[in-house]
């Protein structure tokens, strides 16, 4: 005996008029997870595994790295002192 094909029947959904639909349809229960809250506020969770997002992130990184490079260099150069710096005499009186 081969497998039997079993047919099951289900009662069809009643036809509802448009203006009745809202009143009879069950309201889906809202999930209150962090992700849902974040998405509803317009922020979606991003992933660095997503190549499109990764590419956008790396492009921004190249831009901002260029912006902070002079500051990094200036911070480093503030510690490169010469003999002249150490020879300053501090002697204000009062």
């Amino acid at each position, binding site marked *: 005996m081969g497998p039997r094909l079993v047919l099951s029947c289900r009662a069809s959904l009643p036809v509802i008029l448009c203006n009745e639909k809202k009143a009879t349809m069950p309201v889906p229960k809202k999930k209150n997870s*962090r*992700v849902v*809250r*974040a998405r509803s506020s*317009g*922020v*979606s*969770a*991003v*992933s*660095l595994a997503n190549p499109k*997002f990764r590419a*956008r*992130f790396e*492009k*921004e*990184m190249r*831009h*901002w*790295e260029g*912006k*902070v490079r002079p*500051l*990094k260099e*200036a*911070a*480093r*150069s*503030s*510690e*490169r*002192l010469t003999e002249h*710096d*150490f*020879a*300053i*005499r*501090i*002697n*204000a*009186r*009062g």
Partner: protein
Amino acid sequence: MKILELAPPRFISAEDAQKQLNYVEGYVRDPSFACKTVVVEQHYIDRDHMEDHSVFYSKSLYPYPNFCRRVHFFRIEKEELRKQIDRIRNLRAAGADVGEETFRRECAEFSRLYYLGFAVIKPLPGCPVGRTVLRCLPGESGKGYIRKFHCACDLDAHLLGLRLTVWGLPFQQQDLGVSACATTALWTSLQRARQLEQGANATPAQITIRASQFALPFGRPMPSEGLSLDQMCQAVQSLGYSPSLHRADLFEITRGLLFSSVSSGISPVLIMDLDKDTSHAVAVAGVGVTKATQPSATSAILHRSTDLRALYVHDDREGPYLKATIRRKGKEENLLVHFELPSGKEETWVLTHILVPLHPKIRLSFAQLYTAGLDIVYKAQSFAIASSPSSKPITTLWKSRIFRSSVYIDSLLGEGKSEIVKQLCNKVPLSRYIGVIRVDATGLDTFDVLLDTTSTERNLNCLAVVQLGKTRPNTSEFCKFTRDSYGARWIA
């Protein structure tokens, strides 16, 4: 200060000699303190004066006394003060019913309500103000900015059986015998450094002697002819600290380093020029910052030092907690320090160097911490922009500070982050002092990156990425990225 009946100085005007004393009087009379009563201890042994006396004044023909007087300031009427002192003393004398703990609590409460601090009066008519600790000005300035005295600490004074506590930073005037401004500024800065590590304080005489141990570029060390920056560094080093010196070339960096140092509770010494021949040193006690950071019209990375408006400095030529406004002339890179002196005169100095005495275990300087912070924060800014659903400007705010690890953990507990503290303590061994980069980026929860300050710039050891909130889903993704980039632990 008629009550002190000071002997008039011989060859200089009383106005000049007592400038600092008059400043102290004006300070405690200010409406925010409203001093009503002073108590004078007639025979007080001050360690700093005793040491100065031993090294210098005892060898004079004139028999300067080795003891001082000490004046305590209270914001309470004389009769009420007597009653309160008697009440607390009797409380302790009542016996075992009142424990030591209760007595201490009563002393602390009494100090909080009524005690404004003290000033040591030295037996030197030309420079009477010795070690002086006055309560810091209130946080609310009423002028659109907030005062924050990060470099102040609780200091004790014992009077009539009570232990009085005042929140302040020690000040004293230069005497031009043992100390000039360089020695005095270092003395103040080291007072704070010693407080962090519970050590004995260096006296002005010790500082001047250590400074002139190996080099005398300007002749004799005493009477003090001033010190060179080299000598100041020598003194710091020989007193057990590492002198971290920065040249103030670029306005933004200088302001950032200043803010980082002061908000870490480490009092920096500012070296400033008025003209080619006059350099001065002052120690910083606190800052004046705007209540909220001004938003940027375009996307930007902003260090919290952009909020810095003023510094409160101990200027030994004037007095404690003197306000100095931060200024910039056009697009010039010099950071200007502007004083409105009590005499009505105005002075603008150019900041040339910042000297920070660091604990020897802190190998990472504030400039190196700033550089490391920039490396982290530009990635956070990039992530915030890349993940932003809108094209609105994105501003990332950040600050860089160095704390004792126990102080950092205590501050987390104060912010209600006990679960994070539990994880941090279980998972990450912390160095005695840690560098903390705190980042507030749009669309991300606030997070801290902790750096090991015993490591150096080339081999910087990142300890942990501490995520302080869980309301924004992208934060975890960025924290994981930071963890992987720097080889740190992720605590959330």
